[in-house]
């Protein structure tokens, strides 16, 4: 996806930004770019305006049917939340306050910006091999006895990585963990449903006398999937009053 996306932020032809989605290094990168476009010190950017611009960016990208990576969407959702909080009167805000969240975002942008700047300044220095040259053909001197082997830690680690990397795949004997299989769960549920007449909580269908924690987890998972499967087949009905409330099951009437 090398498509160049043209997005107009300010409704103003001269302020057009060309955005190449692939060229961005994540949502923070986009945000920093947008913040810089505000042409003020990063310490004084308007977070609200920034949020607005980012949401427009995402909306336009979606309009162009670009696939947006999940982290861009997560950031968009978070920023939308931040925006609504910022618009609330202060006393209705939860902890941490919207101002605090906005400030955190601003600090992150400043830090990323500082490092980007630092990297640029580093590259602008006189570099060996480019601006400054070392001796072309050193005769070599006898220095220290123990420096006679040219071997860096990097070489060592790479060597170990190579050994590990080439090891012939071994046969693994996987320890069998206590599992309540889906088949078992289906059998158990079906047979027990014949006797239960009314809504029955799912947990009562679990095998009796479970002591092992792993096995309990496996039983819950399998029984749940089995319940879904039976319901899909039209054999049972499921009911739940609320999120995380107990799940009830009965034979289809």
């Amino acid at each position: 996806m090398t498509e160049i996306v043209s997005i107009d932020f300010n409704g103003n032809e001269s302020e057009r930004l060309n955005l190449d989605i692939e060229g961005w290094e994540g949502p923070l990168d986009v945000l920093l770019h947008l913040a810089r476009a505000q042409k003020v010190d990063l310490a004084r950017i308007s977070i609200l305006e920034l949020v607005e611009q980012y949401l427009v960016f995402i909306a336009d990208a979606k309009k162009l049917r670009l696939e947006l990576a999940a982290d861009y969407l997560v950031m968009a959702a978070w920023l939308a939340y931040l925006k609504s909080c910022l618009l609330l009167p202060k006393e209705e805000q939860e902890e941490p306050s919207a101002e605090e969240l906005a400030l955190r975002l601003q600090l992150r942008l400043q830090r990323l910006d500082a490092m980007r700047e630092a990297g640029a300044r580093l590259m602008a220095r006189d570099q060996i091999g480019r601006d400054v040259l070392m001796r072309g053909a050193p005769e070599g001197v006898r220095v220290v006895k123990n420096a006679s082997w040219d071997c860096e830690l990097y070489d060592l680690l790479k060597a170990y990585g190579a050994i590990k990397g080439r090891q012939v795949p071994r046969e693994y004997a996987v320890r069998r963990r206590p599992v309540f299989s889906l088949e078992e769960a289906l059998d158990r549920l079906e047979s027990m449903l014949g006797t239960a007449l009314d809504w029955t909580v799912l947990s009562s269908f679990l095998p009796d006398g479970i002591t092992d924690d792993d096995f309990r987890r496996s039983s819950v998972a399998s029984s749940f999937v089995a319940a879904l499967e039976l319901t899909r087949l039209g054999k049972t009905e499921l009911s739940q009053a609320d999120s995380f409330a107990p799940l009830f099951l009965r034979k289809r009437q």
Partner: protein
Amino acid sequence: MSDAIDDDLRFQRIIEATLFAADKPLTREQIAEFLPEGTPVQPLLDALAESYAPRGINLVQRGGKWHFQTAADLGDILRRDEDQTRKLSRAALETLAIIAYHEPVTRAQIEEIRGVSISKGTIDVLMEAGWVRPAGRREVPGRPLLYATTQGFLVHFGLATRRDLPGLAELKAAGLLEPIDAAMNQLQFEKPPETPEVDETDTEEEMDDEAL
């Protein structure tokens, strides 16, 4: 008196010959091995560096090691091939900057600042260039590996010590090298820090610019 001057000249000759012939930068101690025991090396090096300063070859100190190199202002004249130095990707450049200005840092800290995860090859490229090295582990759960820059990094970018990193002092003064939690606490000191976030971001060994 004139004997002392003779000695100084003789020692300077040895030092310049040694550094000239060496195929990598040398520490003061390594240089001292070529001189009579007890010779004060530092003043000799300083004098030599000063006498070479106006010339086309300069004597410089990087991270405690000395070497000769061509004068920076001749770079344009001496540059031969168009693009000898590999171009670093933006990710690698930012990662390098973060390691240099924050060292020692963990990978998680780098990712935190950049806001994206680092791809596999990025640190590898920097290690291969000889600019970055593993530097122990942070003593927190998981004991994550720490990264720091090398003497080769100082050499390449012409830095005598890490203190010479461009803008380091200003960034420090502006608090931009502090973790965000610490900065938040400071900004809101009117409000008592309620959840005392224990940030184990140590700063002790960060100015460790001794040679490896």
